[in-house]
Every structure is written in C-alpha cells, then in structure tokens.
C-alpha cells in the first residue's frame, strides 16, 4: 500500500518535472542525492563524482519524461539509484580500464536499456556543445540569446551595440551558418 502511495507521489513529481516545474526538480534532487552520494563514496568515488553521476541520471530521467511515453514501473529512488550505479560502473571502467572492478559493482549492471537512448542524446549534446564552444564570441551568446533565451533581435542588437536589428540579424545568420556547419560536420544524418 505504502509503495503504491510512493509511486503515486513519484509519478506526480515526474509530471511536474515534465512540465519543467523547478519545485519538483528540487524535491527529486534533494531526496535522492544523499543515497547516491553514499553509494559513490562507498565505491571510492569523490563528491564531485557523485554530483556528476547523479546529475547525469537526472538528465536521463528528464529526457525520459520529455518523451511522454515513460511510465515509472519502480520507485523513483530505485530507478535513479540503478541508473547511477550503471553510470558509475561505466565511469570506473573508462577511468581505471586496467583495474579489475570490485566484485560488488560487478554483480549489478542494471538499467542498460534505459541508458541506450540517453547515450545517443548525450552524443548529440556533446557535438552541439563542442560546436557552440568553437564558434567563439559573440556568436555563441547571440545564438543562445535568440534561440534558447528567445530574446528578440532588437534586444540582441542593443546588447551587442549593433546599429539596428537588421545588422544583428545578418550577424546572427553568419553565426548560425558556421554553427550548422560545425555541427553537421560531426553529426552524420541519414538525410
């Protein structure tokens, strides 16, 4: 009974997360982080490792709820824990490839399917991140302001001291073309 209640609560939280409510995110974060921190510390990780792994797990969760077809079958805590475990395992394997894993970690390699999708998205994100950081300023900020923060060209023109919005727009298109080129150089589309 209690577990059902917990799952109901977890589902509500996820609904909030899907809507982008900061409150839900905060609750999920603060409730589940200590467990993961403990697990990572137990397996010779640092606090920063715990933070990285946990945030990645939250991102996985976020991507899932964005897809709308995600239904939580276990408790949220269990889901996050197993994802974190898996991520940490991968990380340990990457970092200490030569060393044998501790038997406790080897026992459980959970949540493999959950992460396949995430790996693709993560790949895309890395490419975009790389492209963004290599176009340089002020391009990066202009594009971020326009596409991500949804600022108008007028605001951007004022911010960067362009004489009018049209000039800023031209600049934006130049930047956008460079970014597209950099992105598609690495991102092989089936198109």
């Amino acid at each position, binding site marked *: 009974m209690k577990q059902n209640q917990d799952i109901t609560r977890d589902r509500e939280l996820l609904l909030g997360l899907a809507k982008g409510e*900061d409150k839900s*995110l*905060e609750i999920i*974060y*603060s409730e589940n*982080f*200590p467990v993961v*921190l*403990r697990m990572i*510390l*137990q397996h010779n990780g640092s*606090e920063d490792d715990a*933070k990285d792994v946990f*945030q990645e797990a*939250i*991102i996985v969760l*976020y991507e899932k709820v*964005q897809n709308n077809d995600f239904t939580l079958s276990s408790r949220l805590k269990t889901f996050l824990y197993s994802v974190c475990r898996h991520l940490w395992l991968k990380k340990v394997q990457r970092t200490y490839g030569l060393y044998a894993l501790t038997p406790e970690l080897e026992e459980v390699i959970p949540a493999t399917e959950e992460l396949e999708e995430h790996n693709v*998205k993560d790949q*895309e*994100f890395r490419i*975009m*991140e790389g492209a*963004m950081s290599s176009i340089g300023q002020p391009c990066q900020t202009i*594009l*971020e302001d326009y*596409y*991500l923060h949804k600022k108008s060209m007028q605001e951007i023109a004022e911010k960067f001291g362009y004489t009018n919005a049209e000039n800023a*727009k*031209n600049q934006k*298109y*130049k930047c*956008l*073309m460079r970014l*597209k080129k950099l*992105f*598609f150089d690495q*991102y092989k*589309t089936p*198109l």
Partner: protein
Amino acid sequence: MKEDMILLREIERYLEGEMNESEKTAFEALRHTNPLINKQVEEHQLFLQHLGNYGQRVNLQAKLDQIHHQLDMPTLRKQAQEENQTAKRLTIRRRTITNLAAAACIALVTSLSTIAVIQNVSRNKSTAQYEDVRRVLNNIQRSQNALVNDMNKKSRAPLNPGTYGGTGFAVSGNGYIVTNYHVVAGADSVYVQNNKGEAFKAVSIFEDISSDLAILKIADSTFKSQPLPYSLKPQAVKLGEEVFTIGYPRDEIVYGKGYISAKTGFNGDTTAYQVSIPVNPGNSGAPLLDNKGDVVGIVTGKQTTSDGIAFAVKSAHLKHLLDEMPKDKQLRKEWGHKSMEGMNRIDQIKKLEDFVYMVKVYN
C-alpha cells in the same frame, strides 16, 4: 555565400511562420520542385531541434547546479560517511563472525581428533614401552608331521633351536624351573637346555599371568637332581643394591651386572623392581641375584623408551607363588643348603651356571 544566407533567412522565416500566405505557398512550391532546398529545410528543422535540446539541457544543468549549490553538503557528507562506516563495520563484523565460526569449527575438530589420537596412543603406550625380553629364534615353519615326530622321540631334544627362547632357573633340586609366562605362553612343547648342552623336555605345571611367571617341571628321566646353591630371598632388597643376572640372550650364557633402581616395576607395579641392568631378548626368566648369591628377582622385561631399564619380579612374590601351588605339585624345598655367601663373583657364577637353563619353546 550570400545566397546561402538569403536561403537560410527564408527557411527560418518559413519555419517561424513569419511568411504571409502568398510567400508561404511560393516557398512550399519551391520545396516541392527543388529537393535540395527541401533537404536544407529538413536539416534546419533537425538542427533547431538539437539546438533546442541543447538549450534545455544547458538550462537543466544550470538548475541542477543551483540546487546542488543549495544542498547542505557538509551534513550530507558526514551522514554518508557515517552510514558507510556502519555498513563497513557491519560487513566486517559479519566477516569476523564467519571467520570465527570457521576457526572454532577447525579448533573443535582438531581438539577432538587430538583427544582421540592421544587416547589411542596412551592405550598403546604401555604395551609399546614395555618389551618382553624373550628371544625370537629363527622362525622356521615346521610342519605338523615334524612336530609329531619330535613328540614321538621323547627323549631326544630337537636339533631345531626352537621358535622362542628365554631363560629359566631351578627353584628346587628335583627339576622345577621358574621362567616367564610370556616365554612359554602358547607353547606346544618346551625344552630346557643347560650350559653343558644337555636338553630336557619340560612341561609347564603352573602359570601366573598377572606376575608373568611360569613353573616348569623337567619331565625327563635323564635329569639328575642336585641341591641348589642359592635360596630365594624373602625380604625386599634395598634401593641401589647391586645385583647381577646370568641368562641366555644368545646361545652362550651371559653375565650382566646392575643395581636396583626403583622398588616398583613398570607403571608402579609393586610386585616388581626396576633394575638398571643390560638385558636383551632372551634374558626373560633369568634370575636376579644379590651379592650373597641369593635370588632377589626374575627378569621379565625392559622399557623400550629408554636404555638400561629392566624389570624383575620380586623373589618374595615368587616364594608366595610357590607356596600357593597345589599340594600335589609341591616341590621339595631345599633352599639355603649351601649359601654362596662370601664367594667371589666368578665362583658364584661358576656354581650358578648349572642351575640356569635356556628355555626353548616350540609352537
């Protein structure tokens, strides 16, 4: 380059819905006719989607960092460490308990088996430490027929040296000889042979297993009785008193000298002495005599674990035994007719020789 930019601008206007109806239809027509432009549009759509994802994620990351920043890290750290320590302690405790249990099991098994082994050994020990000093002679398997033949030729002593050998000595002038029970135990026939090489057939008439003594009677018409030159000393001898023995550890009579080293025998046996004297297999049943030439004991065995420790049954016990013998078998008591007191050892031995026999046992 310029054219690309114009196209991009047009695509963007189209996707963002900034075009008016006529422009839109024109552009859609262009998309249909020109697959290159169509591809560009789709690519841009995809790109915008990725860009959107990127933005969302950056946004999310920022939020997460913010939340993380708000967390009370020192408290969490402390908690986690404590919990981990408890967990570790628990696993350690669990491990320790398992190990302890295993160790306890091993200890239990070890101690039990040790006890078993020790009990077994101590049971065997007494027999292992004590060794009869009868002589195992050339162990020739004799057929039943040969044995029967021997028995038929009563008067003739067999040439065969016998299976076992010991020593015996006369306790009366008329052919009673005392030896160890273990020498004659299980014997088919017993012969005694003196130092002149004369063998006489003998029969065991009385046996006392507890004190390991046997009385033989020479059952041979050729035996001539003669008085004994010694007597059985009824009192116990003192500790340290010098004693000597003569016996047949080999085919020749052998003299040995020693002293009483304890008033009790093997494992505290009060009917025997411990004697420090060289004895060998074959000495069993040999007389132990004091300086006066009186019999103080009968050599029975030795301790295997240390050299030079022999045991002899006290003469008092022998005397007691002789008194207890059934009346019809009573021997004539002829003790102390001629004492060998004052004689030197060589003369004593010379006299004694005639009364000490090699006991040959056939079975």
